[in-house]
């Protein structure tokens, strides 16, 4: 008998009373309410700013300019982008004019590990959506924007469309049918990396990005 069989045999031998299926939908229906896009934007922004992210309201037309401004202000000379994505392509076009170099994540990590770990000051990625309740960005890393792209560079810039903000995590996974379609890695990101492990004193930039910058893309006002 293997360990597996012995563990399962012990569990199966236990007299267990059946338990009702938890009714998660009705708890959310009575405790979380659907907000308008403007309300969701405000809630999202309030929460993620509280978690120390920098947020800029931009539009489809203005975000590349804001991106350049942010990079210039922070004196960042190199940006990791995904040229195969629409936003990545636009970023490369704009960056070419400014003299800020860009780098694509165009080979597997093994081929450029050293550079990725030490010499990429910032990255730009899109986000699949966001969650208003907790001020959370949702990223599904893929071949264009791999997992480490949102983790190793000290500054992570995220472009997010306000129309993809959901009220809750529960609502988002339900409405998008996550249980049948999860990628190898799905990420919820709610601020820059932080720790309070030394004397409960909050410090940012523990292992991940020290700064998280959100370009919140809405309608032109």
């Amino acid at each position, binding site marked *: 008998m293997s*360990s*597996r069989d*012995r*563990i*399962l045999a*012990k*569990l*199966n031998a*236990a007299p*267990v009373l*059946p*338990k*009702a299926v*938890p*009714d*998660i939908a009705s*708890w959310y229906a*009575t405790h979380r309410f659907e907000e308008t896009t403007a309300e969701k934007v405000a809630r999202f922004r309030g929460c993620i700013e509280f*978690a120390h992210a920098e947020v800029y309201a931009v539009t489809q037309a203005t975000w590349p300019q804001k991106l350049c401004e942010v990079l210039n202000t922070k004196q960042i000379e190199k940006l990791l982008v995904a040229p195969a994505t629409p936003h990545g392509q636009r970023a490369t076009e704009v960056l070419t004019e400014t003299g800020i170099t860009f780098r694509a994540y165009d*080979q*597997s*990590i093994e081929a450029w*590990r050293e550079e990725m*770990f030490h010499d990429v000051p910032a990255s730009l990625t899109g986000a699949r959506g966001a969650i208003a309740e*907790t*001020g959370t960005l949702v990223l599904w890393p*893929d*071949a264009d924007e*791999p*997992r*480490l792209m949102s*983790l190793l560079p000290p500054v992570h810039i995220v472009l997010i469309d306000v129309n993809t903000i959901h009220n*809750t*995590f529960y609502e988002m*996974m*339900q409405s998008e049918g*996550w249980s049948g379609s*999860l*990628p*190898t*890695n*799905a990420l*919820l*990101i*709610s*601020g820059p*990396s*932080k*720790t*309070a*492990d*030394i*004397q*409960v004193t909050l*410090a940012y*930039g*523990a*292992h*991940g*990005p020290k700064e998280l910058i959100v370009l919140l893309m809405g309608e032109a006002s």
Partner: protein
Amino acid sequence: MSDHALSFMPSEGFRARSKEVVENPFLRKSFRGAMDFLINKRVTQFPSAEELETLRTLGEQIRQYNLANLPSLLVQLEDSLTRNGIKVHWAETPDEANAIILGICQAHSAKLMVKGKSMVSEEIELNHACEAAGIEAMESDMGEYIVQLAGEKPSHIIMPAIHKTKEEIATLFHEKVEGVDYTDNVDELIQIGRRVLREKFLVADIGLSGVNFAVAETGTLCLVENEGNGRLSTTAPPVHIAITGIEKIVEKLDHVPPLLSLLTRSATGQNISTYFNMISGPRKADEKDGPTEMHLVLLDNGRTQAYADEELRKTLQCIRCGACMNHCPVYTRVGGHAYGTTYPGPIGKIISPHMLGLEATKTMATASTLCGACGEVCPVKIPIPELLMRLREESFSEPHANPAMRGQGAGYSRLITMVWQGWALVYRSPMLYGTYSWLASRFNWLTPSNQGPWTTVRVPLKPAPKRLRDLLKDKS
């Protein structure tokens, strides 16, 4: 078994170790301050009592439903993970779990393992096993890193280095990390840790992590963290090994949001952690990073014993938030090391006896005032005070056949049991009680003035010369 059980300090030393902390004003202030901080942060996360109560009930229902279906869910999880390309291993004991992990390391000729925070890896003492096998196991959570540098164990499951001051950490870094000058600036200290550990992430052969929730239907391992070291440990090295207790499983993906909300709000008073990392498989052919190989080790280590009993099974509802220890008047005063077990505080008192047996932990459940705070704050409504009473019963009752727990009756004493039986007899019978109290009041001069520990700081207890019933009689 091997010497693993011995490396856990038995509960006998609890008194001496807690005395050390109680007599150290520095440590007392550290724990009190940190616990007050966490208590207040939690309160601000739950402004509505109704929301908290209904969410706790929902959390309890989710955990109980999943535990009720545990064996079939484990099989479902194994199927889903296997389909996703994650290899599943089963271990009954810490030794077995270590052997599995070391086997994987050796198959890859691994020299360096970086670890995200995992209490289960502490439970099996993986770092010792790695050291013995010549593999460097490096903790990467800042708190765990500090504790490892100091050669200590975590004193809190969420904040491992809560017992250390920044000055102590500054000295530690100065002495143990090459080329580091003394600084007690917290930001600088964290940046030192970041620099040191990033070099480790760069070259590590194996990444090890725990699991907060394992989703059976999708084959997804979920990790909650703030630092990003959990993401690095599970992404940067070519091989990722996750280890979890068999109870951390949920059937449906939609069971996760309520538990996640309860966990982060109860643990550190955050509406959500910085990162919630959901891993459903190794790197695919077209992907450019992530581990190329993934493993999950499912550990029993006494959990099946707790599972066998309807009441004790509730212990397994735990989502490891640490709120019970933050609110515990005993934990706050004695700190995490006093318990001598991997899991300290109220949850430690109810889970450790299943892992280590009651022989080594027989008095743990008595290190409680039964004030009930732990049960009141538990996000999944584990009746901790009731379980503490149950464990006292298991420890101190006469050994009998087919016990529910290993080591049942380990604290049994015929004399003490007889004394209490006599006491119960007297207090149940009005006649016997009348006689006893009459004798006690008349012969109160026989009471010794030295009554052991009681009289070291208090006046001796002495029955009154007249009983209440005598006083009432005099009055009428």
